[in-house]
């Protein structure tokens, strides 16, 4: 069964139609690549799923329509995401960026935290242990106490990826995780994505411009062009689709 179904969502910004009846779906354990030229509306689809924008149509997560839900309530359902430019929390170190994403899971309240009550301390320790596993998965353990602003761009984006994992999602939205990364960092990223898929078995939608990576890793590809769904299918078929080639040749 599909984890997430995006059903004919449309969205305009003051006369500019950004999404036009976009429909896609992703199943448990599936890695869906979402591709399309710049400005096609890929990030906007993510913003609609995560509750930052409110489109018409339906977005169903495990059968439940989530359009109109607040972003933190969407996250509470187990939908986590990364952002195109990393958008890590500059005021926090690497470990605390991940801890911030465990906000929903940590059960302490401000009073118990202020007083340093045993319950609050226990929660803090338990969740630090949880994120230690994710730091390890992404080879970030050695950087746990480093302020994120001291890190190179590629590492910051990796922190953004680890932070999304820290939420403990069952659906992960990755917005151009490889953009701005070096060749070597891309190879590492591909490995982390595959490892996440193998170890956690969660559904992922992955916006990506590196067609080689997409061809190698994706289970399925969905193509957006000018806010419309242009093609959907296995990599071999989609990447050789003349329509898709045309859309890409038109802009790149």
């Amino acid at each position, binding site marked *: 069964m599909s984890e997430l179904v995006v059903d004919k969502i449309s969205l305009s910004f003051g006369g500019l139609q950004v999404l036009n009846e976009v429909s896609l779906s992703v199943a448990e354990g599936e890695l869906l690549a979402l591709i399309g030229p710049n400005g096609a509306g890929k990030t906007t689809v993510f913003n609609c799923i995560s509750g930052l924008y409110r489109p018409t149509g339906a977005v169903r997560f495990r059968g439940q329509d989530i359009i109109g839900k607040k*972003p933190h309530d969407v*996250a509470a359902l187990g939908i986590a995401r990364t952002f195109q430019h990393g*958008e890590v929390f500059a005021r926090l170190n690497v470990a605390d960026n991940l801890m911030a994403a465990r*906000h929903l899971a*940590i059960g302490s309240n*401000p009073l118990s935290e*202020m007083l340093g009550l045993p319950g609050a301390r226990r*929660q803090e320790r338990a969740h630090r242990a949880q994120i230690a596993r994710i730091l390890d998965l992404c080879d970030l353990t050695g950087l746990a106490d480093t302020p994120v602003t001291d890190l190179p761009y590629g590492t910051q984006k990796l922190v953004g990826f680890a932070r999304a994992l820290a939420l403990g999602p069952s659906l992960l939205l990755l917005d151009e995780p490889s953009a701005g990364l070096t060749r070597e960092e891309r190879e590492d990223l591909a490995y982390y994505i595959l490892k996440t898929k193998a170890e956690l078995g969660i559904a992922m939608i992955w916006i990506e411009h590196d067609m080689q990576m997409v061809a190698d890793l994706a289970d399925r590809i969905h193509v957006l062009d000018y806010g419309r769904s242009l093609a959907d299918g296995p990599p071999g078929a989609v990447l050789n689709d003349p329509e898709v080639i045309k859309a890409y040749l038109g802009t790149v």
Partner: protein
Amino acid sequence: MSDLSPMRVVTALIAIAALIALPFLASGATLDIANQILLATIGAIALMLLTGFAGQISLGHAGLLAAGAFTAGILAQEIAAPFWIGIPAAALTGALLGVIFGLPSLRLRGIYLAVSTLALHFLVVYVGGEYETRRGFSTGILIDPPVVFGFEFWDPVAWYPVLLFVAVIVWLLARNLLRSRTGRAWAAIHDTEPVAAALGINVARTKLWAFVISSAITAMAGALFAYYRGFVSIEAFSLFVTIQYVAMIIIGGMGSLLGAVLGAAFVTVLPHAIEAASALLPSSGGLAGSIFAMNYAAFGLIMIAFLVFEPGGLVGILRRIGGKRGTR
């Protein structure tokens, strides 16, 4: 996080020794200034949590101090409530006002939020003033000094350890909070709200908690101020007080608890330093009247100088001298 370099340990030990020795060495007047610094420290930590950490702008600080002072004053006056009722009651009043002060932050930000908190400042001052005139205390309310086991707290020497204790406790509570879920959520919404929200942080609730906690501490500081002075008058809570507190966190260094303390000390001592300096000038007689104006002017200049040349504040300077990244 807390790296215990020998340099830091020595500095901390010297500071602790000085704080303990002070009441034995200092005159009553000096100790009064020390007490004012401690009171300002509590208020500045409260504002630092809200603005320096959670990133919410407020110009309601004097109003909240007034609310706390008046809660203590009115309770003392009307039902002869002792301080151990007055202080929690003030904190509770502050927490409730914090919700009200915080509600506009769910819709507004920046200058608009500042103006809305300013409106609430005037509301609190209006209510306090009304109380004073209606009850015929047009010059202010007198409060008896707190009594503990028959011991009366009325002189600066007796107050010093109390205020030092409270300031240290408030620091520790704030530090605990900043190192927990709430503190991280404040940092997250301070950086970018949509990203924080998409990662599961309830932005509205996080902001409201910042206002509630900050306002409760502020009102408690206001109540302590009232007991310390033995007197409450609405005159003491002008907008200039708000500006002084904003100056404390800017001059001390945004986003640092140590900055709140240093800023509180700097801004509290500044007028006394100006007074002392002008007394040394040869024609001090003619200057006496203009000291007040000089104080305002010096204050403005220093604040601008920090904003332009040292946005990291006193803590930023210390860090550069130490050549190290400091902790919170």
